[in-house]
């Protein structure tokens, strides 16, 4: 019969229309600003810098190694290394970023900076309502605006943050053991030859601690090649 196919199709639309009043499965949209769907844990949009403790400036994990700046495909990261050093989370002296800017109007949320970072210092945020009236400066974030606490990281990506914390704790244990061993060796050495100054003891653990994780090992290998 001519028109049978059309009627069949109309029956389908009618079923869906009526069904949207009774079945949540057929009503798929939400009224966005008032209603919101539950956030998905793995969601990512723009990067932020993680800091430990209360003071963002002291606790920044970033050591300004500039790997993310080099690897960023759209080149939206700008880093200036500091000329002096400050102690990091493990207590050893490190360079820190004197400037760390990300232009999030250029950033394309690819997560490559997170992947290549050997220090777990940069992670992806989930904040997406970032509209601003300032066309030029509003989306260029400096290191203060980028810094967010480890607690914030735990809040938005609990699984990933727990893994990262476990890895860092393991690293710290290793670094402490190494520092202790080095300190003992240095002490023994110092006892043997009293002419050497004590600063050696604090500087020796710097290298092995950095190559603790697998990522870091990979990075240094790549760098050498």
């Amino acid at each position, binding site marked *: 019969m001519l028109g049978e196919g*059309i009627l069949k*199709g109309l029956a389908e639309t009618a079923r869906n229309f009526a069904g949207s009043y009774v079945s949540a499965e057929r009503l798929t949209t939400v009224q966005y600003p008032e209603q919101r769907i539950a956030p*998905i844990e793995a969601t*990512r949009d723009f990067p932020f810098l993680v800091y430990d403790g209360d003071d963002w400036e002291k606790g920044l994990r970033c050591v300004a190694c500039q790997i993310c700046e080099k690897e960023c495909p759209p080149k939206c990261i700008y880093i200036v290394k500091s000329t002096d050093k400050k102690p990091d989370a493990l207590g050893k002296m490190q360079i820190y970023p004197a400037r760390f800017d990300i232009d999030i109007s250029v950033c394309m*949320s*690819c*997560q*490559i900076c997170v992947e290549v970072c050997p220090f777990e210092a940069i992670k992806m945020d989930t904040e997406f309502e970032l509209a601003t009236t300032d066309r030029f400066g509003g989306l260029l974030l400096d290191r203060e605006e980028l810094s967010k606490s480890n607690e914030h990281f735990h809040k938005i990506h609990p699984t990933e943050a727990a893994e990262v914390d476990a890895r860092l704790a393991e690293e710290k244990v290793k670094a402490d053991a190494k520092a202790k061993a080095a300190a003992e060796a240095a002490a023994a050495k110092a006892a043997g030859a009293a002419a050497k100054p004590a600063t050696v003891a604090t500087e020796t653990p710097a290298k092995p601690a950095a190559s603790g994780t697998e990522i870091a090992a990979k990075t240094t290998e790549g*760098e050498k090649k």
Partner: protein
Amino acid sequence: MAVAENKTEKLEGWNRPPLIEPDGEGELLEVAMGPHHPSTHGVFRMDVALDGERVIRLKPVFGYLHRNHEKLAEGMTYLGSMPFTDRLDYMCPMTNNWAYAIAVEKLTGQEVPERAQYLRVIVGELTRIVNHASAVGFLIQEMGASGTPLMYAFKEREKVLDLFESLTGARMMVNYMRFGGCRVDATAAWLDATRKVVAGLPKFVGEFEALLTGNEILMARTQGVGILRPDLAVNAGVTGPMLRASGVNYDIRKVDRYGIYDRFNFRVPLGDHGDVYDRFMIRFLEIRESIKILEQALKDIPGGPVMDSKAKIRGFRPKPGEAYGRIEAPKGELGFYLISDGGPNPYRYRVRPPSLINLTILEDMCLGQNVADVVLIFGSVDIVLGEVDR
């Protein structure tokens, strides 16, 4: 002399679309369809010469969305190009990732673990389903049924995009695959959610087909329109559902058996007439085959790592040489051709986009048809301008 004449005759037949003579009454009308035409999926222009309603000439104009993808990739590390491949065919980023990963893996001789292969098949086939459903939706939209069928397709697409987001962190710009595996592993919960979505797909396809397939208006508009002959399709390098709708049995999943496609039991649907209706139906049939593959892959997926432990994602320099990696993307053969000179970035990076090459024979399909059918034929090619212009 006679031989030479024959040769030109043959060449004319091969290289030129058939010449449609105007009937001599009235003047020809030149119409620029696009670049802001609602049917054009993006920015694309067709310069059409019309004799009344009939198309006498059609010139496609590309390049409005050119973003310098290939040249950018030459100045960037191999890893750096991966997120840009998402933006080629933005309807199916997973398959773009896959093709590029295969090309680099061929260049470096990198192995891919078993579980990563299965995950690639799963996300790839989900992408194919989403793409085909949306392609059908857009095609019907161009026929004038604005909204409803497309939103049916998008309702299902949304479920798959949610899966992608919970796996990779992004709905569309996934940046998921790496040279030697996948970036993150799928959790058991994710696999269960995927099984649930896949279990709901046959019902969706049934509904979608009930809505459209038997529709008399659709059949009247599409059958016998925009016929593509198989010999012309092969000569023009057309691939994917378009080629198979013309009756040529060529599916790279079967021809190359890349990845682990030799383990799955599925069939390649073929069309008979090569018209718009065949191209429309072949997408439905391919969705059903993809569901079969998904069911098998989700049943068999083994445990293990998703990245080769020896794999390097950055800071590697492949030996000088070249590699061409290709896959059966939802739109056709998607290939990446890379030349390495031993440096950290490719010396040459070339994309073989299915959309562009399938679009080159648009004029041959449109000549002699009504101008209203041009939009329809264009829609049945299923292109994404991001991939056409790169």
